[in-house]
């Protein structure tokens, strides 16, 4: 687990500059202006689509741990700013994908919430794939979960070979 849990209280009580990003629920994440998708997800995805599409094993190969942690710290120091965080300072694209994966893994509740887990697994199951049910479950997700899932799946579709970049 990444050691990225720096609390505001530990840094500066009068003017907290560092925002905890990792391990914090989706609906408490800073977002770009006019977006409901966590800034860290949007920034990493855009960077991957900008310069990682031809990279072998883009999500399979792990980034250097120190680089991943440096990126995580950059997001935390970015605070609540709604401006895009420029990730061009990080040359290792696998560190960026590693940061995104770490963020998703450390969410206290996943993008598809615990309450929906069994129903979603059943709807997608081999015993009987129920597309209507799956769509209904996806459609009933809270807004931030729904928007985030749509964003990520479209990104995966693009990686898969689809033709709709962001």
């Amino acid at each position, binding site marked *: 687990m990444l050691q990225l849990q720096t609390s505001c209280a530990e840094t500066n009580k009068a003017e907290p500059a560092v925002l905890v990003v990792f391990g914090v629920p989706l609906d408490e994440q800073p977002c770009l202006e006019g977006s409901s998708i966590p800034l860290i997800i949007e920034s990493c995805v855009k960077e991957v689509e900008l310069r990682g599409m031809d990279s072998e094993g*883009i*999500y*399979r190969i792990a980034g250097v741990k120190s680089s991943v942690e440096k990126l995580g710290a950059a997001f935390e120091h970015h605070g609540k700013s709604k401006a895009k965080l420029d990730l061009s300072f990080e040359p290792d694209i696998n560190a960026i994908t590693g940061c995104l*994966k770490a963020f*998703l*893994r450390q969410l206290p509740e*996943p*993008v*598809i919430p*615990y309450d929906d*887990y069994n129903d*979603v*697994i059943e709807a*997608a*199951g*081999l015993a009987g*794939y129920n*597309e*209507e049910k*799956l*769509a*209904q479950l*996806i*459609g*009933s997700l809270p807004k931030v979960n*729904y928007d985030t*899932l*749509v964003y*990520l*799946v*479209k990104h*995966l*579709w693009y*990686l*898969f*070979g*689809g*033709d*709709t970049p962001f």
Partner: protein
Amino acid sequence: MQASNLAIIFGPSLLHTDTAQEDSGLAFQENGRQCLVVERLVLNWGFIESKAAVFRTHLHSNSGSQAATPTSAVPSTAAPHFANTRILELKGEDGHSGLPTRDSPTSLVTAFFLLLQLI
């Protein structure tokens, strides 16, 4: 990149249980089910998203948060243009390309589960 590879990476990230599975065999199967969900989403996304959007519109209109009430099952927002065209492209003219498609349940994850059922 293969949808099954993406599913293996993102399956356990996008959904998982809040209880640890002590039996490694069961944990492995559970992990496979999580991957299958993501694979379904990626391969069928155009269809799923258009249906989910319709359901969402109904949900919001029933809760009174939106004035417009859909009167038909036609999606209020069009499915992404790739929803149909891309899958047809993948299938090729003879319908038998090497890529997994909506009509072909022969992806790696799916095949793995079918194999498990046969053993």
